């Protein structure tokens, strides 16, 4: 439960309202920094695997060409080899930028990595996500991540062969950290590319519509338990104990349907409202309690009275 509570808290901290051009407020949740790092790593993995596969294919073709150069050093083979080399360089360049550009401009606004982690790119102020913005945020990624990494690598290689790469290493590290830590110093977790492009990365949940609880069992109009046929009716006093927060916790429990949890909650509620707890009909009891509590709270809501939780 505490892990879940911590998650809920971090979620409310990341919740934002995005106002669409026609003035509808849509809640969005800023993607967590860990999800974004994960997405980047996945995308890198896909890209590198893809490039290696293409490289192997090239080798298969060009390997034959190199052999034929040795056997028969004709102009043609050299030309073919050169052609393949150029094709490789151009392919690498377009794969590098195209992978992100094409996918983020697609209807999902996300690369494969982002899709797997359920996040997407969006324009920051509820506007339209434009190609310019996507290009800008992706051009900057190079400077944020790859150039410093390349320099760090160079510094390592230099120090390995005995040359002093110390200064370079520290400069590259500082450069890398500056951009890597950038998302931690603004509340929307923007990286430098997001700032330049006017974008942010948000969660893109695909929630399925759950069944309505109040149409089932003891919560429905008949209000009788399918098991015992008992009808549970709660009075004003008993329903005024809890608020919205408890109601929604109860809803989650009923939807999860964990017997032990239901049993424990049943006991707690019975103790709280001084009801004589029966045995074996916990679910029906809770369904009835849920439906009547919600009816009461929603009725109050219509008159502008809201009760956030049991302390309110």
């Amino acid at each position: 439960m505490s892990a879940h509570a911590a998650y809920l808290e971090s979620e409310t901290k990341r919740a934002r309202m995005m106002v669409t051009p026609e003035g509808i407020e849509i809640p969005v949740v800023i993607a967590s920094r860990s999800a974004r790092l994960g997405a980047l790593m996945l995308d890198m993995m896909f890209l590198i695997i893809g490039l290696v596969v293409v490289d192997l294919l090239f080798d298969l073709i060009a390997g034959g060409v190199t052999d034929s150069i040795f056997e028969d050093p004709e102009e043609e083979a050299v030309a073919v080899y050169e052609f393949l080399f150029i094709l490789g360089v151009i392919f690498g360049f377009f794969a590098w930028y195209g992978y992100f550009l094409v996918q983020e401009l697609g209807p999902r606004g996300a690369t494969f990595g982002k899709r797997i982690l359920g996040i997407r790119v969006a324009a920051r102020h509820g506007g339209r996500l434009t190609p310019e913005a996507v290009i800008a945020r992706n051009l900057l990624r190079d400077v944020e991540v790859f150039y410093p990494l390349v320099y760090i690598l160079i510094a390592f290689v230099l120090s390995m062969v005995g040359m002093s790469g110390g200064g370079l290493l520290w400069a590259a590290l500082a450069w890398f950290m500056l951009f890597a830590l950038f998302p931690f110093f603004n509340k929307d977790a923007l990286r430098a590319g997001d700032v330049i492009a006017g974008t942010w990365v948000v969660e893109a949940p695909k929630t399925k519509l759950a069944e309505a609880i109040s149409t089932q069992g003891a919560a429905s109009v008949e209000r009788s338990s399918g098991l015992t046929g008992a009808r549970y009716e709660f009075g004003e006093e008993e329903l005024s104990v809890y608020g919205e927060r408890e109601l929604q916790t109860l809803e989650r429990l009923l939807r999860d349907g964990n017997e032990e949890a239901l049993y424990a909650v049943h006991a707690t509620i019975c103790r709280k409202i001084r009801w004589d707890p029966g045995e074996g009909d916990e679910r029906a009891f809770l369904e009835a309690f849920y439906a009547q509590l919600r009816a009461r709270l929603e009725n109050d809501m219509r008159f502008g009275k809201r009760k956030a939780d049991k302390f309110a």
Partner: protein
Amino acid sequence: MKAPKVMGSLGGFFSRSAVEAPADIESAALRSDRFRLEREADWRRLEGIVARMEGGGLRGVDDADLLALPTLYRTAASSLSVARETSLDLATLRYLESLVQRAWFQVYGPRKGLFRWLREFFAGGWSRAVQALWLDILIAFLVMVAGAVVGWLLVDQDTEWYFRLISENMASGRVPGASRETLEESLALKDGADGLSAFAAYLFNNNAGVCILAFALGFAFGIPSLLLLVHNMATLGAMVWVFASAGLGFEFGAWLSVHGTTELFGILLAGAAGLHIGRSMAFPGTQGVLDAASAAGRRSAVVMLGVVLMMIVAALLEAFPRQLVGDPTDRYIIGGSFLVFWLGYFFLLRRPEPHALASGSTERAGG
């Protein structure tokens, strides 16, 4: 589809709506659940359309659904605001929030794909973006000229400076005091065209990297971009001095101009794009810093895409015509005509932005 306003007993409500309500709705004890069950079909239809659009753009969606999309989207959005005020069903609220968000992304998704955008980019979008950066281009140009002059003057004063600006490796014999023959040879044609296309691909990767760097460094208020320009041009200025002092200034200019007019123009634009971002962050005017930075960033990104293309052209010019055409006059003609082409394309092509009104109003409402 509106729920009748009945404040009385539940029984009263049922007797009135029993005729049209599906059986499922009757068994719901809560008004908010009936509200939900009545609208559920619309929501699910919207969800289906959105899912199809997410899957494959507009191809999988038939016309009737496409026409219904805006209405369904607005219905779902208003359902959400009603539900927020009347329902405590967390599952339904979460579902509606997610549905409205997904539908919104489709209704207000990127209006055109990358390829349609590219067509507009060539037909005027690129020139427009370059024109919008005129002040930054002017500043970057002055900085580049100053850099070249500084490089010249430094080496003119003390030839030791040359070796600080240009590494031994890169100089490859083109050093102060080198004989006229050595210098002449470095400008001469290479034998045949072997390996030149691979050389071009390498050059392109290299130069495009430098340009993207110049652009992205604009993030630090544009100063590193300018420093990069100064350094590059000081190197060039120093090299010009070496050749000029051997009496080869004209030939060196010819050698350089073939690809240089395109490449240096590209570097100029990249530096200007970086400067544009830095300037808008340092002096955001009436906008917030973030808004100013993102507006400048999007404009500069368009310029940068063009710069990458210019680098492809420059690399091809550097590898082929420069190594195959030897006569200085021919070289000047090639370089000069490219310069004229770029200038004309950027500053004479003036086309108004298509849908300027529509996109402008959206942005303003959003900001």
